[in-house]
């Protein structure tokens, strides 16, 4: 194929000469000679003639399906795992802020002080799980010598908070629509609670999956213990989160 393309290119490059000034017409270069010269210059290895190429299998001819090239986004940066303490703190603050948007949406039903109460109450559960639950999980895993560094555990917690905050902020317009336009407080409470459950569970899933990735190098016995510990942590996180939300958020039965 390369040889064919080179031949075609050379043939295109050769143009008829202008009208001769003398009676000696310019000699048209031989294509084969030009080709040989080009091969020498570009060091194209001699190969079989194009017609002699064996037919490629269909799988080789068909273009492989390419993954679309998606531009990096701020959401990718927010859910990143690595980074120094400053970056982790920034992502935590961002996740908490995003979760507060959902809280403000829940408080829109009553307005006034309820906006602030809910805006503080929603992220409180995420922070509580991260601050109270994760150190316990780290201690249990360390007792069984699981290969989990403190940086990795902190990164997982931050990722969980950021993921929850992102989902809750995304659901905030929908929650506001339901909370404001529902006639009964019960229906508004159910709509708000569904969003909290979805956001909380997706954040918890992100956190647990990140820990599981970190523990892939462990031996099978440690992985079994880690799985049990993570299940216990998941249950603890759900109960703690629910306790905080039902205690702090008036819309879901809190004070």
């Amino acid at each position, binding site marked *: 194929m390369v040889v064919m393309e080179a031949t075609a290119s050379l043939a295109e490059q050769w143009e008829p000469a202008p009208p001769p000034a003398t009676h000696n017409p310019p000699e048209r270069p031989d294509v084969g000679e030009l080709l040989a010269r080009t091969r020498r210059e570009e060091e194209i290895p001699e190969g079989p003639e194009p017609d002699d190429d064996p037919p490629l299998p269909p799988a080789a001819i068909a273009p492989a399906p390419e993954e679309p090239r998606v531009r990096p986004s701020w959401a990718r940066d927010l859910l990143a795992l690595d980074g120094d303490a400053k970056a982790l703190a920034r992502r935590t603050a961002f996740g908490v802020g995003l979760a507060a948007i959902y809280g403000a949406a829940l408080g829109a039903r009553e307005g006034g002080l309820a906006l602030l109460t809910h805006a503080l109450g929603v992220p409180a559960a995420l922070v509580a799980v991260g601050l109270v639950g994760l150190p316990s999980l780290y201690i249990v895993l360390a007792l069984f010598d699981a290969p989990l560094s403190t940086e990795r555990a902190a990164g997982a917690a931050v990722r969980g908070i950021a993921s929850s905050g992102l989902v809750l902020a995304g*659901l905030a317009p929908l929650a506001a*629509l339901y909370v404001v336009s529902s*006639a009964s407080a019960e229906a508004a409470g159910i709509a708000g609670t569904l969003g909290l459950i979805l956001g909380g569970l997706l954040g918890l899933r992100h956190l647990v999956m990140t820990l599981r990735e970190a523990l892939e190098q462990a031996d099978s016995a440690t992985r079994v213990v880690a799985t049990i510990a993570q299940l216990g942590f998941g249950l603890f996180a759900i109960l703690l989160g629910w306790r905080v939300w039902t205690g702090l958020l008036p819309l879901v039965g809190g004070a």
Partner: protein
Amino acid sequence: MGTDTSAIALLLRNPREVARRCLEEEKLRPLALASLAAVGLGAAVFGAVVGSFRGSEQILYGAVKVPIALLGALVICIPAFHAIAASLGRPWPLRTVIALTMAAAGRAALVLLATAPVLWLAFDLGLGYHASALAATGAYGLAGLAALGVLLRGLGRGKHSMTTALAFVAVFLAAGGQTGWILRPYLVRPQTEDVPFLRSVEGGFADAVYRSTRSSVGIYDRAEREVIQSSRELSEPWEQPMESFDDGYDAQDDYYDDARRSRR
């Protein structure tokens, strides 16, 4: 104009290419404009046809309200789509999510546009109230499937693509249900004398789901108990007051449908 036509053809014929363009942010402007135009036109025509069940000003109301309901639902859904996709392994830029959602909605609206003449003919041939509601719902379902074609191709075959798609559908149903509920009525009986642009606030989609769930397990609220009691006391079903029911089954519907058919 030629660009818009080709973009509309692309929306209909090649959802995979549409999804790729959205993900790679390639030639998005003509695609977004065509999608927006399709949503406006398709939803307006469909709304007008649904409004034609009663006729007169309800045609205009339907043509205005259905695009507003659809676009309102999309505006509410897009942040949720962006967040859910990111949380499930697709941290796309917001621009990509907007383009993909608009393209999916544009394709759905074109399907609504295609079903509108069939629906109109069915109304004209005397289709009853409940059957008309079902037919309109079926058309909406078909449009939803067409939209799903673009979304699924955009999500690709990676991890959690089906979970993400199901979450998208659930969020859209929730948003569309509430925006649609707020902007009721769409399908109005021909005998209705005064048609408001918007019905007075009578709960919401979540209230209806909440009440229905309680009723299904035998827990009735006071108002519902009174309605059931009074309906038992009345001897004939058409003596029941229309206000007793909120878009539920009404025996008068069948009476009206019979009367409508006999008029024709």
